[in-house]
């Protein structure tokens, strides 16, 4: 079920990239914004997958693997949070 959502998200990202690329070929100014939306969605999918793993292992009280997942999640979110805090 949740895997189906991830798969759908990748295809939505692909559709945004295709649309953006067509707009770019047509010389439209909005093209970059559409492609950036697609790229960020693509980046969000593995982050969401790590979050899912964290929830699964926390529910199963498998703290070793929950802790390992937190290390991974930190590596993904720290630069994003820093960039947001810097007011990008």
């Amino acid at each position, binding site marked *: 079920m949740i*895997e189906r959502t991830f798969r759908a998200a*990748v295809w939505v990202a692909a559709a945004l990239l*295709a649309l953006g690329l067509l707009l770019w070929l047509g010389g439209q100014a909005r093209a970059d914004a559409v492609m950036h939306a697609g790229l960020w969605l*693509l980046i969000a999918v*593995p982050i969401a997958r790590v979050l899912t*793993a964290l929830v699964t292992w926390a529910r199963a009280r498998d703290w070793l693997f929950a802790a*390992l997942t937190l290390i*991974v999640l930190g590596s993904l979110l720290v630069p994003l949070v820093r960039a947001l805090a810097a007011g990008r």
Partner: protein
Amino acid sequence: MTALVFVTVAAGAAAGCLGVMLGVGGGIFLVPFLNLVVGLDYQSAAAVSLVTIIATSSITAASPQQRRLANLKLGMLMEAFSAPAALMAAYWAQSISEPTLRKVFAFSAIGIAIIMLFRINKRNIVIDPLFNPGLLGGHFYEKESDAVVSYRVRRVPLACGASALAGLLSGLIGIGGGIVKVPVLNAWCGVPMRAAAATSAFMLGVTVVASAIPYYLRGYLIPHFAAATVLGVLAGGQLGIWLSARVHVKGLKLLMIAMLLVVAIVMLVKGARG
């Protein structure tokens, strides 16, 4: 410029297909192509390559066939080493010169090719349903032997070290790092080739996001090249999933070795010219 974008779609399709079949992200083929043929600077080529590997990995991960082969616990343990290494290396790469990055790329490719060549006939298959795979082990059904294959993960610290190295290379030269993890898991840690490839592909997206975010935030990602390559990779990846069930593992390894050596030599020659 427009023609180059279409060439990039085709290159993405080829890399996506090979990447899925070999259990790597395809970056090892895309980075040299984007850098040497399309003419993007090394960091921009790496950024595009990284984003396309996220797409390949997400699609591979979503295929039910690959999910059954992937070992989630082993994958997450390895990511705990890959992801932080990738993040640090991605920041580091932005202060390294292009010829140096090309040389690092070439020597990495040669090293992996040599390991693969020495281990080409090795199989790690135990056909015994009572076999205890331990904390990190796994099992899957293999068509050729019509049996459930179980394996125990040996030399776990080595797998962790290889993951850190894979993450470092991912952030530094713009590959997924599956090309480091798969041979090490297969050759020394007792993980069968298909399980190693599926585990690597399943978790690759995570390493690569850790590498890609610093490049993206610093403006190295050119949206139209990224879009073109990702679309190509997604199409090629679908073909790769279909083909990978129909091609023998040994043939895949030989193909991988040949491609690696060709790519390494081209990168060394061009790298030496600056």
